[in-house]
């Protein structure tokens, strides 16, 4: 074989596959603010998993000899009206935030995904009923809806998660439905149908996986907002009761002592901001890395 022919053959070879995962991380971690977000989230997860080891004091045990202390080397952010260390309470609050955030997000995403997939895949009257229901749900502010559902179900952490989850599912249903409609028309769906696959099988094995990328983007972008809703509800005192520590209720507890001890309500708020900001930035990063069309546009 001549040298020239060999070169031609070489050029016909498939170029080496770019490692998708490596490219994802390269784009994802390309911006310093995303790296900052990842670090904050890692710290948050560690705090949520092992607060007993990190927190210097018991967050619940009252110490009436040391109430309303100003910050000192023993109590970095001071103590509250019942002598409880504020730093420890903020660290324990991370657990509530992560737990409610993740579970509520999961409830919203799964229920929204199933509704949207069903509506988009079947179309017709199924589509009309489900999507008009979702439209109706969107007319209620999430905060009010969550409040009403919390009334219906009664208090408790689990019910708060369900309330936020139902309140937030409409966004997922909408995105999923649009995705399912566009994926449904693909040849491989027709192929699957003609080879006798059931609707269930086509929906969950063929349509669903092809709808995932925008759903993942939406989910990462919504974690921050979910945590904000949790903070809002616990600020109002809905669902989350003592002794569970939540950042929103810490802000509310400290509100009474605003003039003389402003740290009591401002410090937990800063924890919320840092964490939500971190999740939002990571969400933007995931979107840039998964959907290159949108890169840098937000």
């Amino acid at each position, binding site marked *: 074989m001549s040298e020239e022919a060999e070169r031609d053959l070489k050029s016909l070879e498939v170029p080496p596959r770019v490692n998708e995962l490596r490219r994802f991380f390269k784009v994802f971690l390309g911006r310093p603010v995303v790296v900052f977000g990842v670090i904050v989230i890692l710290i948050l997860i560690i705090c949520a998993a092992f607060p007993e080891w990190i927190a210097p004091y018991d967050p619940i045990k009252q110490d009436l000899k040391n109430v309303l202390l100003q910050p000192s080397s023993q109590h970095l952010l001071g103590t509250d009206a019942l002598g409880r260390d504020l730093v420890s309470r903020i660290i324990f609050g991370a657990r509530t935030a992560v737990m409610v955030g993740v579970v509520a997000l999961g409830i919203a995403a799964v229920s929204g995904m199933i509704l949207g997939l069903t509506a988009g895949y079947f179309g017709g009257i199924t589509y009309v009923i489900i999507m*008009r229901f979702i439209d109706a749900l969107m007319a209620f502010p999430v*905060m009010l809806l969550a409040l009403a559902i919390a009334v219906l179900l009664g208090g408790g952490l689990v019910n708060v998660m369900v309330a936020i989850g139902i309140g937030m599912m409409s966004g997922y249903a909408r995105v999923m439905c649009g995705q399912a409609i566009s994926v449904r028309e693909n040849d491989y769906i027709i192929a699957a149908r003609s080879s006798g696959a059931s609707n269930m099988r086509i929906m969950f094995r063929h349509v669903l996986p092809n709808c995932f990328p925008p759903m993942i983007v939406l989910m990462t972008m919504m974690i921050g907002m979910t945590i*904000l809703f949790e903070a809002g509800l616990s*600020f109002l005192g809905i669902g989350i009761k003592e002794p569970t520590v939540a950042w929103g209720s810490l802000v509310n507890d400290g509100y009474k002592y*605003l003039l003389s001890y402003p740290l009591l309500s401002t410090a937990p708020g800063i924890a919320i*901001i840092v964490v939500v900001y971190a999740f939002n930035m990571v969400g933007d990063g995931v979107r840039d890395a998964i959907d290159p069309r949108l890169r840098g546009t937000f």
Partner: protein
Amino acid sequence: MILVLLIVTIIVFLMVRLLPGDPILIYLTQQDLDEITQEQVDAIRHDLGLDRSLVTQYIDWIGSVATGDLGTSIIHRGKVGDDIKRRLPITLHLGGLAFIISIIVGIPMGVIAAVRRGTWLDSLLTSLGNLGITIPIFWLGILLIYAFGLKLDWLPIFGYTSPFKDFWLNTQQIILPVFCLAVPAIASAVRMTRSSMLEVMRQDYIRTAWSKGLRERLVIMRHALKNGLIPVVTLKGITLAAIVGGSVLVETVFSIPGMGRLAVEGLFSQDYAVVQAVILVVGIVVLAINLLIDLSYGWLDPRVRYG
């Protein structure tokens, strides 16, 4: 639209009917129950129509809602409709102002960030936008109360006075709450406008507009903005619901007797009729304003008008 409205009412109706326990308990106190016999309970049940089918009950309920009867509060035994009449204007006043401010401030900021992409101005506006969707508004409210109310003593920190009674006091009272409500709305408008404008700015027809020598102002205002605003208008419908949701928190922080506060009070006193009425009225108001927003598409986008 009518169908959505129908579903909204069904959701609100079922919300209270699906309550665990007998709905009759909503109308009777424990004391009443001890004193009266089972026959009397049944009679009351019959009078209230609770022994009929759900569908009949729904039709009855929707009929009374349509005539403005939103039920009776179990706490003060007054008409819930009167509460709503007093409080809805307050929330609409604050929320409406925040909504308008978010459009007037947010959209131009987003356009500027997109047009000056990559400059310090863009970085500043984008960072502010990212921060604005992050801050918990109840915390922002507390911070503002601390700074402007307690430390500087410039503004009153709570309450609401009718603007017709004392316009100047009213203005002072609503500055901080409206600001709190507007911040996340402005921030999401900035983010959305910026990204949508960037998308539009790389279209061919914008390049054509540039290359035929139009001034920047014309390219942006006449060509880019019309298409760039469409997703922003969609977003505003969602923002509206978010502002009403936020008013639950802001009205609590600033002790403003609006709809949000009413819902929270109803919640804590287990006054289901109040919670139900607030949710129904808010849902209908949001739907109505969304209808207006949908109609504005036709004005923005001729494809909708002729389609």
